[in-house]
């Protein structure tokens, strides 16, 4: 089986040939698993093969919408567990990928595992040698998943690397150091693989990093471009930072963005400025923190930006998933990008130009009177953190957070899990020391019976509330709509559930015994639709019994 081992720098053609030979051998001898050949063209048209789940959010548009329709409101009560995979202990926030009979998921802290989708039995596992003293300042030791392209699976690691693994064997092909973990950099997001490139975002704003988005060559891991999310002195946008504050200005890129191949633009959400709750030393709007960037995928050049929360002092990162939608708008088809932002507003932007088309409140907020004609918030005075504490909605975790929303082109509804929660924000000192917390305050959130959650369905054009389903506690789990007319989700108290996508009526639920901290995804095996979600340290796969 030496063909499985491919060393760094080998021509890609050899890799392909090797994988094909192995796949052919497998097909002849075992007949279970087919080759893991996922060329870029398949990723571009991922919506056409709903039996697989080929990118973090399902497609480049990040709809997190499954076009499978076997499971419907009429039969969803028959859903039961098909298999469970027990992960290594920790916080499991992975969205598995499924390609041609194999499921690829990540386990804490940065382990990649390949499973037989039919049984959940492990095929291989690769463990990143993450040092015990690895820094993850301001976030837990998580990993949210992998990207796949051709025969290779890509993953980020908690200690700040991007690693390419052979999809058939889990053998490491190359490893690139993205940034220095000693300064607080980590990679927790699933990479985004596009034609010949793997796009990587970083975490670390709570340690005062200066954020960026990177593109690496899929062939050898060389850096193709890097775009900083905080401009250096003299660059466009640097006038929005006081003094040298840009050098430690934050702007992490810690969730997976979206991609429009026609426009060749990447859409990536940018995190909070640093320090989080004390903005005294960074006067100005602090571009491009709390913004959405549209980047030329070939060069990384910023084509346009839209800032949701200028001069944020509440830690309302804008890393939430940008969902690309093609809509009839004012009588003509328009390419838009939508986002339910952590700041409690829902936005619709033109994704060619960045023009603000619509914005409206989708969850309780007490910091802005509304948005002006350009989409800029009209901030209510005295809502900044103070030494004595200031009560503001939403809490620092926002009206939503890292977990994914979903868009159904069938209902034209945007589904989002909402954290209904306020917090008392405190302002504190902040002195930058490399690789140390740089936050300048904190919060005490309203919790217990004083907080709650919802799954909400918004009209994709107007953001108007179509329906809501209440949750006991603010959720940390995403949602997925399906062509069968369902929305799947999970609760902090361990409920998996399915709602009617049109009405929000609950149709099925299952108590998994531990908090759901993941996004649902769907695939098909042997012609049967499957739903995967994780809770606690386990990935559950559900299906209808024959």
């Amino acid at each position, binding site marked *: 089986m030496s063909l499985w081992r491919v060393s760094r720098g080998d021509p890609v053609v050899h890799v392909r040939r090797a994988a094909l030979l192995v796949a052919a051998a497998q097909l002849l001898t075992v007949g279970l698993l087919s080759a893991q050949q996922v060329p870029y063209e398949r990723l571009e048209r991922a919506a056409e093969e709903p039996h697989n789940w080929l990118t973090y959010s399902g497609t480049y548009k990040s709809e997190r919408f499954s076009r499978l329709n076997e499971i419907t409101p009429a039969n969803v009560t028959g859903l039961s567990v098909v298999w469970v995979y027990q992960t290594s202990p920790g916080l499991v926030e992975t969205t598995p990928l499924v390609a041609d009979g194999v499921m690829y998921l990540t386990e804490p802290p940065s382990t990649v595992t390949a499973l037989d989708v039919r049984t959940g039995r492990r095929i291989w596992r690769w463990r990143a040698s993450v040092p015990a003293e690895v820094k993850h300042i301001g976030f837990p030791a998580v990993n949210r998943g992998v990207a796949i392209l051709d025969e290779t699976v890509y993953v980020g690691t908690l200690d700040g690397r991007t690693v390419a693994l052979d999809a058939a064997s889990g053998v490491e092909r190359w490893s690139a150091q993205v940034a220095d973990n000693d300064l607080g950099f980590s990679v927790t997001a699933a990479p985004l693989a596009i034609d010949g490139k793997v796009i990587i975002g970083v975490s670390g704003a709570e340690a005062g990093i200066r954020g960026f988005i990177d593109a690496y060559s899929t062939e050898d891991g060389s850096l193709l471009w890097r775009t900083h999310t905080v401009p250096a002195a003299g660059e466009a946008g640097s006038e929005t930072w006081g003094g040298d504050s840009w050098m430690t200005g934050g702007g992490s890129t810690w969730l997976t963005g979206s991609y429009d191949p026609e426009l060749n633009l990447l859409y990536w959400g940018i995190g909070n400025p640093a*320090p989080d709750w*004390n903005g*005294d*030393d960074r006067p100005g709007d602090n571009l491009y923190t709390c913004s959405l960037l549209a980047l030329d995928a070939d060069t990384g050049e910023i084509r346009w930006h839209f800032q949701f929360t200028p001069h944020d002092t509440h830690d309302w990162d804008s890393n939430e998933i940008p969902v690309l939608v093609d809509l009839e708008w004012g009588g003509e088809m328009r390419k838009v990008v939508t986002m339910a932002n952590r700041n409690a507003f829902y936005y619709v932007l033109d994704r060619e130009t960045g023009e603000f088309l619509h914005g409206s409140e989708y969850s309780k907020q007490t910091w802005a009177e509304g948005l002006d004609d350009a989409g800029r918030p009209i901030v209510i005075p005295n809502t900044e953190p103070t*030494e*004595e*504490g200031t009560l503001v909605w939403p809490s620092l975790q926002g009206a939503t957070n890292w977990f994914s929303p979903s868009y159904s082109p069938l209902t034209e509804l945007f589904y989002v899990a909402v954290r209904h929660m306020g917090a008392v924000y*405190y*302002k*504190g*000192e*902040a*002195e*930058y020391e490399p690789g*140390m*917390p740089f*936050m*300048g*305050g*904190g919060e*005490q959130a309203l*919790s*217990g*019976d*004083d907080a709650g959650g919802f799954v909400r369905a918004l009209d994709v054009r107007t953001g108007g509330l179509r329906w809501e389903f*209440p*949750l*006991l*506690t603010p959720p940390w789990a995403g949602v997925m709509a399906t062509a069968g007319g369902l929305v799947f989700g999970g*609760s902090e*108290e*361990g*409920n998996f*559930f399915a709602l009617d996508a049109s009405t929000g009526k*609950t149709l099925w*639920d299952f*108590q998994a015994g531990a908090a759901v901290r993941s996004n649902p995804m769907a695939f098909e095996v042997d012609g049967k639709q499957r739903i995967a979600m994780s809770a606690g340290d386990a990935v559950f796969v559900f299906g209808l019994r024959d």
Partner: protein
Amino acid sequence: MPRRIPLLIALCLVASPSLAQEPTAASEVHADLARGRTLYVTYCARCHGMTGGGGEGPSLARRELPRAPDDEALIALIRDGIPGTAMSPTWWLGDREYEPLTGYVRSLAPATAAVDDSERGDPVRGQQLFAGSGGCASCHTVGGFGTNHGPDLTTVGSRRGTAFIREAILDPEAALPRGLTEVGRNFIDYLVVRVVDRDGREVVGTRLNEDSYTIQVRDLLGQLHSFYKPHLQTLEKQFDQSLMQSYREQFSDTEIDDLVAYLTTLGGAG
């Protein structure tokens, strides 16, 4: 330079004897204590009382803190919180905060044996009231004896300040405990709920646990009920109610003092 929080010098405190020995160092210590007090008032006073005498949380005005024998343990406790209790983590603070804060918490310890209003009462008479005319054991457990309609009080003296214990006896609905039962952190314990199921059957009791789909209730007779929320006609949470009666009318002031004194001894307080 980052803006520093102004020190509340006006609140600067009574120095402990050791602080008076070296004037130069002492002024720094005073500044640290003032800084510590600012942090204490911001983060701790709501539960532990403005002067550390306790409240919803235990008194910190003691010479030994049972969970924090040394400063390192105290910093770890403040940083990480105490799972299963209302003691939240303060992960965003750093050594610049923890050191003055722990210093201030230590300064709350009385130079002599603890004195607080629990000493007004007689714990022996309080125990008799608890077991006798108070009828407390019909709802509470102490040392394995009693029932479970209300919180187990075996260690209540180490978990609550005397003011909170007194309030719970006089105005139970104003001192509802939080975060001790299975519902989760900061949820109200023994929350009174009224449930009407789809057949019109009504149950009043206390919440044992709840998720987004179900609620577990113990009724007034001790019977356990499990309800599926989508099938309920009514789920009413009575946030301003307690199943416990006030003892304001039943006991004299002296008897209340005795009961408070008894409960304060439970769990090795002081």
